[in-house]
């Protein structure tokens, strides 16, 4: 037992000695969550628009003012001719152009209708559509205000409730995602790299001929990294809760238990990678391509899985992060208990068992 603790202390020194890596390890999640929480939003804010007013009457001015008085739009410039439209789009300075037809107010009075042409930069389809929809509803609002005293106009008034995330914050998805990545990456990548490093440097042989059983050599490596990733998880939860008000609706104890379970999964991946990777570069490469990319891409963390092509959806089922993200999102945001997430939990348990069996088969005491 005493020599086991000595091994853990040795690992601890290894980590503490490399201050820069440790700083990045601890600092990165914090920087990321702050950047993401504050910076990454798909809510339209001050989108630059241009107006080509061919009519320049009271009503077109009122509509323009109405649009520009919202927080969604900001006027970049007034255009003078159709030709300028394409030029403004090409310099990337505007997202939308509003074109009022000539004699707008006159047509509205005389014929009861007048037309506006909305030209939107559709390169980013969601942003383009959102901008278009906002403009649409502002103009239609104006229209119903004009017609308010007329008979025969009906209004359907929608009452909206945004369930689970009332302010549509991106950070609600990001906190669970970040926890998943940290738990997985630090435990799997760091352990495998550090084991590969010992192999590369030749110190692994020294460890293996010591009286300590090889399995404890590995376990001693796992413990400090588990502690680090677990504490980062708690830091993220606290930051998310205090700065961005990401709630933990369900039971905190249950959430942490699931985190520990997932941590074991990361560790068993780390062991597996280290049994097959001879050098740091290989360990890095496997962790990056095999772990980080799929965890970020196919887990539903940034990109909703149901939008992906069918073959990628099938593929996503073998990504552990997918199941963990479902669990942690349900617990944090919907307040679900074990009755709702037992299936996903069971899948993770099975994956751990599978990984451990494979690594036990692959595990060799000797290096060659």
């Amino acid at each position, binding site marked *: 037992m005493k020599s086991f603790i000595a091994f853990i202390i040795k690992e601890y020194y290894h980590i503490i000695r*490399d201050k*820069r*890596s440790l700083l*990045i390890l601890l600092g*990165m999640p914090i920087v*990321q969550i702050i*950047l993401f929480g*504050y*910076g990454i939003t*798909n*809510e339209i*804010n*001050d*989108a630059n628009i241009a107006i080509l007013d061919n009519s320049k009457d009271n009503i077109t001015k009122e509509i323009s003012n109405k649009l520009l008085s919202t927080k969604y739009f900001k006027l970049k410039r007034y255009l003078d001719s159709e030709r300028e439209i394409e030029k403004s789009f*090409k*310099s*990337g300075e505007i997202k939308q152009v509003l074109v009022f037809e000539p004699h707008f107010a006159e047509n*509205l009075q005389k014929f*009861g*209708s007048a037309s*506006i042409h*909305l030209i*939107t930069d*559709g*390169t*980013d*389809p969601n*942003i383009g*559509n959102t901008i278009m*929809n906002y403009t649409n*509803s502002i103009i239609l609002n104006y229209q119903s205000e004009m*017609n308010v005293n*007329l*008979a*025969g*106009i*009906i*209004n*359907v*008034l*929608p*009452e*909206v409730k945004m*369930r*689970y*995330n009332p302010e*549509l*914050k*991106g950070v*609600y*998805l990001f906190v669970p995602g970040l926890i998943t990545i940290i738990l997985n990456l630090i435990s799997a990548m760091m352990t495998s*790299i550090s084991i590969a490093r010992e192999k590369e440097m030749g110190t692994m042989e020294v460890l293996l001929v010591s009286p300590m059983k090889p399995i404890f050599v590995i376990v001693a490596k796992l413990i400090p990294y588990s502690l680090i990733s677990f504490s980062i998880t708690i830091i993220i939860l606290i930051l998310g809760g205090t700065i961005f008000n990401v709630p933990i609706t369900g039971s905190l104890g249950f959430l942490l238990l699931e985190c520990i379970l997932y941590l074991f999964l990361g560790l068993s991946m780390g062991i597996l990678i280290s049994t097959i990777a001879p050098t*740091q*570069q290989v360990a890095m*490469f496997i962790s990056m391509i095999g772990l980080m*990319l799929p965890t970020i*891409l196919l887990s539903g963390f940034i*990109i909703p899985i149901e*939008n992906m092509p069918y073959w*990628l959806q099938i593929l996503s089922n073998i990504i552990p992060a997918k199941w963990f993200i479902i669990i942690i999102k349900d617990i944090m945001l919907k307040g679900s208990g074990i009755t709702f997430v037992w299936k996903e939990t069971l899948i993770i348990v099975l994956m751990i068992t599978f990984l451990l069996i494979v690594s036990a088969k692959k595990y060799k005491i000797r290096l060659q």
Partner: protein
Amino acid sequence: MRIIWIILQKEFKQIFRTKIMLGIIFVMPLIQLFILANALTFDIKDIKISIINNDKSQMSNQLVNKINASEFFKIVDYPNTTKQAELLMDAGKTDLYIVIPNNFEKDLFREQSAKIQIIVNSIDGTKAGVSFNYLLRILTQFQIDQSSNLGRKITLGLTELPKIIEIKTSNWFNIKQEYKIFMVPGLVGLLLTLIGGFLTGINIVREKEIGTIEQINVSPIRKIQFIIGKLLPFWILGMFELFVAMSIAIWVYEVPFLGSPFVIIVFAGIYLTLVMGIGLLISTISETQQQAMFVTWFFMVVFILLSGFFSPIENMPPIIQKITLFNPLRYFIEMVRLVMLKGSGFADIKFQLEMTIAYSLMINFFAVIMYRKTN
């Protein structure tokens, strides 16, 4: 010149000897372009909706039909109670549900207005926002249709007609509304940054870690020759990757290419010197490959998040928008999207080009100075 040529040969031999390097150089772009481009779809279609129709009148049925006919929504169920609808949503079977109240039609006729409830699962904020906006668009259209139906009946005797503003809409530059067209050009930027920054950094640190850099230091090779010899292979590889990625973008994903390839090639050539300068800088401050990897990784994540690759820069708060001015990837992504999708020329991307040149000169200047000091 001859010395640089020799170093170049040595570097290429080393690159092609190491399988991992080859893997990174050739597999990474393929993975990025084939898996990422397919995975990165924020397309919002087939939004799953369930409808509680308590009214079952002609009006409410017409509304339901209108939603059913829309290409955006898929009605998955007609539950009878809110409780059932809630269960469906908790189980992830619907993204939103609407409740049409009892007296919907009566209220519309009598009060000229009626309420409906819309409950959206908003864990994914973007999706919730876009779905709601689509629904709103359908509701407004429903209103206009019904109003003009009614209007015709009622206003026969009246002098004043309702005033209708017709709204024509056009989406330019991505007519098919495909996310791939938006994302793939951005991916080219990610690729160049990874190849240029990540590989250069790791490569030089490796010589340090193994100790071979000392041998080079005591040889008659001048520092500047060494740096050029180290960087040039990756510049060539980067340009090669650019052509591969661009070809895939054009032939496989059918991304339109409206602008001139020349603009992109010139810009990418300069951009590569910038990211390689960053890689060089990282390598001078790192002792081990592990450190270099961590530092690169840290910057890559920040660069990607703040580049406008996922979410537009102009939506970010002003302070963060200022921070993005220091992000090289931002300029490349803006440039490549403008040139490919909108056909912009040098005059339109002047700002991005100038910033990249200035930035590259600055970073490389620092990198070379720092490099001398450490040795």
